């Protein structure tokens, strides 16, 4: 931080990078909280459906945070985010189930989760990130609607490949792989892929290699802990040089390129980062301790992608804290609507009016909430701003005018460099007459 006296430019560059004491205290407190939740959530909240809801909310926060990198920060438009979430979910499901078997099965313990969860999530991140890269490539040539169609196409292909796989002959992947090379390469390779996809259970979902249900290793420690850690990372990303370049690209591609930002690299990387985040979120959903012990293709349909977009827009596109709030609110709203659906009144109504479609009712309520929001807060709850935003409040990084440093708007201002600063700026201030020159601000003054 700046010294109180504000001495010279040299001090400006030395903004403390080391994590502050407060940062460490915060991290320690967070660690205690997630461990306590891990061990005591069952006792605190006996109702498992509420626990499931809370953990789902945390996963959805990650979904929204990651989509925000593409839709909010990079200004691209993806409507297939559920595809990455689903990839992550299936990957973690397969990896964790096999790891569990390899470790001899048995009980799912907190200790074992330290082996299973990191490996499974790493696999999810790698798989989803790879597909993020592939889907991101077209973003270099496609804009707006066209890119949106590519992302949607990817998500639907992924889902339908799994959902429509015919469950037939019982052949293992190993047996199928062994055939590669014997009679051709391409044919047997695709056969192996088919066997692999088929083993994911089709429409009914995947429940482990022996169909006994997935081992659910991700307790509150992992779910809330990662939501917190990745949330902080996403926040830092936004204000890092990288995030700044990304936002610059969104605002003006030519100007961004002119300062040396390579649009190609940034666009693709934003897709990869978003896909990795979504993959981790999906992995956590699949292994969620209070969730169902299967993963099903329909959990990652267009509706899920749409929900993710809603979370980002609701919170404020580009805002990290906004995306987090959006993730929580949408999770609860969807649940609340489901709760309303199952109330006596609605059920009675349904039995007296047989043509009433409860699913349509749900969509109508959902739409009403969104329309109301767009009327009251067209930019989402936070706009692009953040809760607890330091960036805007932090005053000038430059030395404050002190008796020996004249006010900045004085034309004959002395060089800002202090005595210990060797290089002297050559440029003198251009004359700055008083304000009234008919040059009005473009927008209203900021808050």
């Amino acid at each position, binding site marked *: 931080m700046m010294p109180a006296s504000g001495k010279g*430019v*040299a001090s*400006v*560059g*030395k*903004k403390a990078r080391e994590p502050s004491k407060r940062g460490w205290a915060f991290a320690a407190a967070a660690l205690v909280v997630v461990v306590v939740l891990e061990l005591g959530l069952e006792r605190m909240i006996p109702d498992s459906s509420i626990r499931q809801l809370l953990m789902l909310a945390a996963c959805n926060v990650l979904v929204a945070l990651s989509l925000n990198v593409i839709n909010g920060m990079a200004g691209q438009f993806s409507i297939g985010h559920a595809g990455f979430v689903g990839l992550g979910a299936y990957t973690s499901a397969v990896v964790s189930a096999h790891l569990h078997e390899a470790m001899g099965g048995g009980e799912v313990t907190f200790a074992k989760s330290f082996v299973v969860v990191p490996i499974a999530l790493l696999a999810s991140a790698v798989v989803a990130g790879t597909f993020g890269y592939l889907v991101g490539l077209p973003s270099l040539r496609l804009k707006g609607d066209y890119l949106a169609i590519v992302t949607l196409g990817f998500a639907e292909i992924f889902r339908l490949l799994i959902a429509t796989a015919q469950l037939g002959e019982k052949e293992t992947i190993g047996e199928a792989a062994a055939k590669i090379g014997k009679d051709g390469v391409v044919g047997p390779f695709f056969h192996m892929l088919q066997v692999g996809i088929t083993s994911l259970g089709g429409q009914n979902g995947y429940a482990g290699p022996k169909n006994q249900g997935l081992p659910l290793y991700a307790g509150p420690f992992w779910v809330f802990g990662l939501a917190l850690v990745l949330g902080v990372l996403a926040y830092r990303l936004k204000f890092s*040089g990288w995030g*700044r*370049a990304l*936002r*610059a690209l969104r*605002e*003006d591609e*030519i*100007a*961004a*390129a*002119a*300062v*040396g*930002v*390579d649009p190609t690299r940034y666009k693709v990387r934003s897709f990869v980062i978003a896909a990795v985040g979504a993959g981790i979120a999906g992995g956590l959903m699949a292994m969620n301790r209070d969730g169902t012990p299967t993963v099903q293709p329909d959990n990652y349909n267009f509706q899920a992608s749409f929900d993710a977009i809603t979370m980002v827009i609701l919170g404020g596109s*580009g805002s990290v804290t906004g995306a987090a709030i959006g993730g929580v609110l949408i999770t609860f709203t969807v649940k609340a609507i489901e709760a309303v659906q199952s109330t006596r009144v609605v059920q009675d109504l349904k039995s007296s009016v047989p043509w009433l479609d409860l699913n349509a009712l749900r969509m109508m309520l959902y739409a009403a909430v969104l329309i109301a929001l767009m009327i009251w807060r067209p930019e989402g709850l936070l706009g*692009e701003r953040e809760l607890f935003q330091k*960036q*805007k*409040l*932090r*005053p*000038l*990084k*430059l*030395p404050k005018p002190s008796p020996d440093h004249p006010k*900045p*708007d*004085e034309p004959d*201002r002395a*060089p*800002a*460099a202090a005595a210990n*600063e060797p*290089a002297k*700026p*050559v*440029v*003198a*201030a*251009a*004359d*700055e*007459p008083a304000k009234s*020159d*008919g*040059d*009005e*601000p*473009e*927008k209203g*003054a*900021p808050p």
Partner: protein
Amino acid sequence: MRVNHPTRAKAVLPEGAPLLEIADVRVSYGGIKALKGISMKVMAGEVVAIIGANGAGKTTTLKMLARLLPVDSGTVRFRGEDVRDVPTEEIVARGMSLVPEGRAIFPNLTVRENLELGAYLHRDKVTMAETMADVVELFPRLGERMVQEGGTLSGGEQQMLAIGRAMMARPELLLLDEPSLGIAPKLAAQIFKAIRTIAKSGVTVVVVEQNTRMALGSSERAYVLRTGEVALEGVSAVLAEDPEIQKAYLGG
């Protein structure tokens, strides 16, 4: 403005060699020929103006120099090196910065963030802070508006921000595309004064302008573009007296 490029150790420019030299450069947009073989030379330390009517190819020339447009044919040499196929970020790193046409700032980013992006290729924090102090010295108004969003600045201030952002890269050659466009005359004069200050500090400047009087008044030499070709070139003061130029561009 200190000129110093930590990102790359550069070859020394031979004595008397031009800093920028383009020869017979052609650029087209699809089938439309925008530059039909133009040649220019800019010596280190010069202020060179490019003038010409709307659509003459001035913006195209600068974008081509900043490697934002592909060159069909011809040579482009900066600091004696062929840069025809060098990507934009490399050009910036080598010391050429463009201030694009029309307030091309980042409106939803703060003034500080805009400036920091200018130093995108100079990750060194101390250097960046020093350069920012220089830029604020050049445009004190920016210093007063550091935490404001770029889009909330007035037109003139936005242009100052765009120039300041380009200066954050510590360029050796600054390319300016119509810095006075749509700006109150008084502020335009201030901006040109700042450009002269930048030039005095040793930065070479190529400025494109429709405001011919101002451009010729602030530059040493000028090129007149007409439909993608160099129609005239010479010492600015002489061109300003040229009857043809007076008739065509100076309203006399």
